[in-house]
């Protein structure tokens, strides 16, 4: 046990592990790069859909059912299938990550919109806001706790799942784990695990701060509850 720890410390202390294409900084950057791309894409796809069905109220049941059904499909299997079908490369990885994140983001945004009090919506329309103004000035800000919770959960899930990019020989922190397992190098495996865990937690913390900053002061309590709900509805990879 002690040996494991000393080896780990030595691994992190070794400057070789911090340089070059297999160094920690490179791997971290690769990992972040895949994650950011996937998050941005997922948001770009999911939020407009979520806002549309949230504002009109139509298609929600379908979205929720699809999302629930999606939960029954194991992410690991989906990833491998995507790789099998689409081959190796950044695009399959991104496709897999985005496809996994979009359903729960849509559901959370939809839920956020549905949670807007109908009296609030009624008075907004009654005061003379156009549909778009209602969305922009009222629904989005009021739904923000759930919207952000959805983005946050999906982002953390993407960071975690990006680990599997290594399975198709791409980069990222997953490489330490996959390569380590292949080479029976436990130290490398553990180093990778620690780094991935740290990055995930940092993402969670960072986005949590962002959520607190973005969400209106008048809604902070709802925000905390919403985060908990969203977290439990999603899966991690």
């Amino acid at each position: 046990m002690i040996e494991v720890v000393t080896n780990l410390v030595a691994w992190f202390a070794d400057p070789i592990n911090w340089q070059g294409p297999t160094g920690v900084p490179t791997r971290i950057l690769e990992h972040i790069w895949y994650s950011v791309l996937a998050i941005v894409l997922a948001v770009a796809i999911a939020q407009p859909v979520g806002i549309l069905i949230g504002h009109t109220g139509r298609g929600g049941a379908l979205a929720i059912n699809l999302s629930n059904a999606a939960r029954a499909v194991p992410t690991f299997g989906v990833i491998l299938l995507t790789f099998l079908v689409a081959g190796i490369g950044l695009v399959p990885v991104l496709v897999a990550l985005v496809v996994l994140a979009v359903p729960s983001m849509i559901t959370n945004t939809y839920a956020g919109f549905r949670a807007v009090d109908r009296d609030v919506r009624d008075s907004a329309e009654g005061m003379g806001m156009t549909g778009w103004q209602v969305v922009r000035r009222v629904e989005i800000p009021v739904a923000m706790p759930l919207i952000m919770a959805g983005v946050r959960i999906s982002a953390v899930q993407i960071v975690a799942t990006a680990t599997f990019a290594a399975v198709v020989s791409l980069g990222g922190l997953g490489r330490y784990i996959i390569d380590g397992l292949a080479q029976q190098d436990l130290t490398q495996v553990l180093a990778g695990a620690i780094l991935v865990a740290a990055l995930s937690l940092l993402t969670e913390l960072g986005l949590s701060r962002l959520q607190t900053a973005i969400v209106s002061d008048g809604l902070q309590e709802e925000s905390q509850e919403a985060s908990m709900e969203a977290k439990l509805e999603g899966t991690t990879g």
Partner: protein
Amino acid sequence: MITFESVTKRFADGTVAADDLSFEVPEGELVVLVGPSGCGKTTTLRMVNRMIEPTEGRINVNGQDAASVPAPTLRRDIGYVIQQVGLFPHLTIADNIATVPSLIGWDKERTRKRVEELMNTVGLSQEVAGRYPRQLSGGQQQRVGVARALAADPPIMLMDEPFGAVDPIVRDLLQEEFLRLQRELKKTILFVTHDIDEAMKMGDRIAIFNVGGVLEQYATPTDLLATPANDFVVDFLGAERNLKRLALIPVSAVEPETRPLVSSDDAADRALEAARESGTDWVLVSDAEKRVQGWVSADDLDGQGTVGDAEVHPFGHFVTQDESLRAALDAMVESPLGVAVRVDGDGRYEGVVTHNTLTGELK
């Protein structure tokens, strides 16, 4: 001014919420739409700002067909207050109030001044401006709702049970304050309630609806009580209709009658004379400044020296000219004399209100 021309609203499942309505809401008046659940009063209200569209007929708002302008534009000129208020939880009170000015494009300074002014008008302290709706009490939220509706100074207001969600004491207060506000602002207001007493209190005119969107009667409160159109209206107006009618007439509207008034220093037999002359078996007693102190019976006066030597019975209540005849009736039943004594602000005698006075007014 708001005009309904043969307006009907039929829903897809067949329910009729408004049945061929034609009436006019005169400018500067507060018209109450009242009736039991299912009578369509809220639907009718919401057709004015096109939250619901009529199936048939036309609604004219300020001389223009409501359907001829885009709905958001129409609504920015109409104040809208609903029962649950619908304050935006993510905005401060100040931002909530500033919503329509912001939509219309007022500059920041003008908006800020207007918000400050409105908060004073509705009785909110300025420190509330930076708070959020969830931090306010029900009564405060209601006030914010009214302020928000008044922000762009719309000539017309639609109010749907605006004081329904608070307790009776706060509700009374809000009603009084709103009436005071309306006396100043003279807006054209359509007000929905299910409470006939609130309708009587608030309305210049009342429209009574029946289930199925039928307008049973449209009249001033006084006319409604005096000449109800049919049994439904009679039932809806409720019991003790005469008392309700009396509540609407101020004491100042009737001529006071006179009864014998003496002071405690006067001679008892002089007082007895006065009593016999006027045909009562009692006299009223006042002090040197004519402030009423009570009454003395003729029997007690018999054989006394001065009026003051006899037993003077005090009055439980007086009425002033600003109170209603109903209050006069209330004072009247308290004393065995069967009259209510009318006094001024300092308690000085002005006359009496008798049973005959009341009956005469009710004719």
